[in-house]
C-alpha cells in the first residue's frame, strides 16, 4: 500500500516510550527547579536574580547540591531530555530503517559539534 511509509514502522509502543522519556525529563526538571528556588529563597542566598553563570560554575554547583546545584541539575536534565530522545530514535531506527537512522545521527553530531566549537572558540 502506498500509504504505508516507514513512519508506520514506529509502533505505538515506541511512541509511548519516547513520550515517557520527554515527559519524565520535563517533570523531574520542573521539580528540581522548584526545590532549588524555594531553598534559595528560604535561605535568602539570591542577591541578583538575573546573574549569569558559566557552564563550569553550573557543573561545580551541582557537586555541592545546594539550591544552585538543584537548579543547575534541573537545567542539565532539561537539556539532556531532547538529546536522550534523539539517541532513542537512533537506537530505534537502527533496527528498522538504516537510511532514516542517518538523520538523528547527523542531528546529534551537529549539536555536539556546535557545542564543542563554541567551547573551544
Amino acid at each position, binding site marked *: 500500500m502506498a500509504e504505508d511509509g516507514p513512519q508506520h514502522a514506529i509502533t505505538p509502543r515506541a511512541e509511548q516510550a519516547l513520550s515517557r522519556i*520527554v515527559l519524565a525529563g520535563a517533570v523531574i526538571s520542573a521539580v528540581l527547579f522548584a526545590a532549588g528556588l524555594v531553598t534559595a529563597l528560604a535561605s535568602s542566598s539570591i542577591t541578583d536574580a538575573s546573574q549569569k553563570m558559566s557552564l563550569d560554575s553550573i557543573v561545580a554547583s551541582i557537586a555541592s547540591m545546594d539550591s544552585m546545584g538543584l537548579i543547575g541539575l534541573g537545567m542539565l536534565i532539561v537539556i539532556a531530555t531532547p538529546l536522550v530522545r534523539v539517541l532513542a530514535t537512533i537506537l530505534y531506527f537502527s533496527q528498522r530503517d538504516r537510511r532514516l537512522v542517518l538523520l538523528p545521527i547527523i542531528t546529534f553530531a551537529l549539536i555536539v559539534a556546535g557545542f564543542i566549537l563554541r567551547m573551544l572558540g
Partner: protein
Amino acid sequence: MAVVETLLILLLASILIGAVGSLLGIGGGVFLIPIMTLGLGIDIKVAAATSLVTIIVTSSASAPKYLREGMVNISLGMFLEVFTVTGAIIGAMLIVYLSQSLVEALFAIVLIYAAVYMVFGMEGRKEVHAPAQPGTSTWRFNGRYRDEHTSETMHYGVKNLPRGALAGFVAGNLSGLIGVGGGIVKVPAMHIWMGVPMKAASATSNFMIGVTAVASALVYLANGLVAPIITAAAAIGIFIGAVIGSRFMPRMTGKGLRTMFSVVLVIIAVIMFLRAGGML
C-alpha cells in the same frame, strides 16, 4: 526591583504565557522575551537564553500528548531537525557579535510577522496531499493522523522537501538568534509548501522545537548567557501554565482572540523598535 518581586512577577507572567501559548497554539517566546526585557529590564540575550530553556520544557511537556495520539510525523521531524539544528547553531553563534539594539529590532520584525501569522496563517486547508508510492523519494515521509470529526485515520504524503529544509533552516536560525521556537515559520511551511495537515504540522513542529532549542541553548550556555535563577522561575511558570492551558481550557480557534493578541504583539513590536532606535 527586589529579587523576590522579580521572581514572583516572572513566575506569574510565565504561568499566564504558558496558558495563553497553549490556547493560541504558539510558543511563549514572543510574549516572554518582551516581558523580561521591557518589564523587568533583563538583557535580551539573557532573555533569549531563558526563553530557549522554557521552549525545551514546553516541548517536553506537550509532545507526549501528540506522540500518544500518533499526530507526530517522526520521520519528517527528524529530516527537518537536521536543518533547524544547523540554523540554530549558526544563529546562536552569531548572537554574541550582534548589538542589543540589532537583536531587539530583529525581534520586533519577528513579532510583527507572528501577529500577521496569528490572524491570517492559522486556518488549516481541508485537502490532503496524496501519500507517495513506495520507492519514490518522499515515500519515507508519508504520515497519518486521526481526524477528530470522522474518527478515521487519514494518510497523507509530503512534497517539496528542499523548500521545507530551507524553512527549517530559517526557523532554526531565528530560534538561535532571538530565542523563539520557530513554529511560526515551520508550521505554515509544512502545511502550505509540504502538504502536511495543519494539526500534524503543529504536532511535528512541537516535537522538533525541543531539539532545535537545545542546539541553541548549549551554545548560549557555553557563551555564559544563561541566568539559572530567572530561568528556573520562568520554566516552572511556563510548565504550570502549559499544563493548565492544555488540560483545563479548550483550544481557542476564534479569530477575535487571536486578533486581540496580535494587536498586543504589534504594540510590543513598536516599543521594541523605539528602544532599538534609542528613542525609549
